[in-house]
């Protein structure tokens, strides 16, 4: 934990400054958390709901945060877990098999009002729909959320070596498919 985290936590744990510091925390992190969630749950509406739940969990759980990781990583882990919980819940209701999940990825994307993908973007999504959910999440966390492998490992509880392997596998698949299509 760095000095900034300690200061924020101190204010968050003080009843007098709690609400103001929590508002600051939302300002600081909500955008990054939103995009992290959006890439997992795909649609804007789902991401909005999961983001709200995430911040409510952060607010409730701030007293239990032990400081083993940075505040930023801890918040990402909550957002990640909330997103996975959402996906799992919907999987049971909507999907019948793992193939269905990947087919559904593109269908869900196209149904989203706030998705406006052109041909190039759709090509990337098609490639991403062909890898496993975990591989996709690892790639997105590394490439778009700009998280280190150490941070991703803390968030997902997956060994760094496995994460690296997953990431480079997806990178190779993307490179190969794009080269073939060109």
């Amino acid at each position: 934990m760095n000095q900034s985290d300690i200061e924020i936590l101190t204010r968050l744990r003080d009843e007098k400054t709690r609400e103001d510091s929590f508002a600051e925390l939302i300002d600081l992190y909500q955008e990054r958390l939103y995009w992290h969630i959006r890439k997992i749950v795909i649609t804007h509406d789902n991401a909005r709901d999961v983001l709200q739940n995430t911040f409510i969990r952060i607010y409730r759980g701030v007293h239990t945060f032990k400081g083993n990781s940075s505040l930023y990583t801890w918040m990402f882990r909550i957002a990640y877990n909330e997103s996975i919980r959402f996906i799992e819940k919907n999987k049971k209701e909507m999907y019948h098999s793992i193939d269905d999940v990947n087919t559904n990825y593109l269908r869900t994307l196209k149904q989203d009002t706030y998705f406006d993908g052109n041909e190039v973007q759709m090509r990337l999504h098609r490639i991403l729909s062909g890898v496993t959910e975990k591989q996709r999440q690892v790639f997105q966390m590394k490439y778009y959320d700009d998280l280190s492998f150490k941070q991703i490992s803390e968030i997902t509880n997956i060994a760094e070596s496995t994460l690296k392997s997953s990431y480079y596998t997806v990178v190779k698949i993307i490179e190969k498919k794009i080269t073939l299509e060109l």
Partner: protein
Amino acid sequence: MKTDPNLHKKHKSDLGYDIPDGFFKDTKATILETIKEEKTVEKKIFFLKKPVYQIAASVIVLFGMMFLYKIIETNNSTVEIEQKIVNQVEEVPNTMEDLYIESLMSEEGLDGLVDNYIITNILEETKVNVEDYEDMIIDSFLSEDSEVDEQINQFIMSEIVL
């Protein structure tokens, strides 16, 4: 409100993701509102909780003690009654048994045994003089039946009951 234009741009240009205008401002307001509501409910529950729980706990303890006392009392009286019954049951067969065995073995027969039993057990218990009892029996031979009854009643009233 601090937003990172690069983040939006990156997600828009690479992945085609978009968001409504003013989304983050609205979300922040919604989250803070939800937390405020939750806090108010928590406070209400907290203030409601304390006296209600204290009263409820007192009532439960009170009822518990009453119930416990009742159980102990019932147990005690049950034990006493049981003990009395056992004593009586033990006494009656012994007396009757003794009487019966002795009647079979004695030459005086049952009448003598009854007299003996009355003298040794009942009269002794009631501290009645044996001579008084014998006088009463002799008198009874000389008197009419009604007088005998009256005498017995008087004797019982004066000697045994009183």
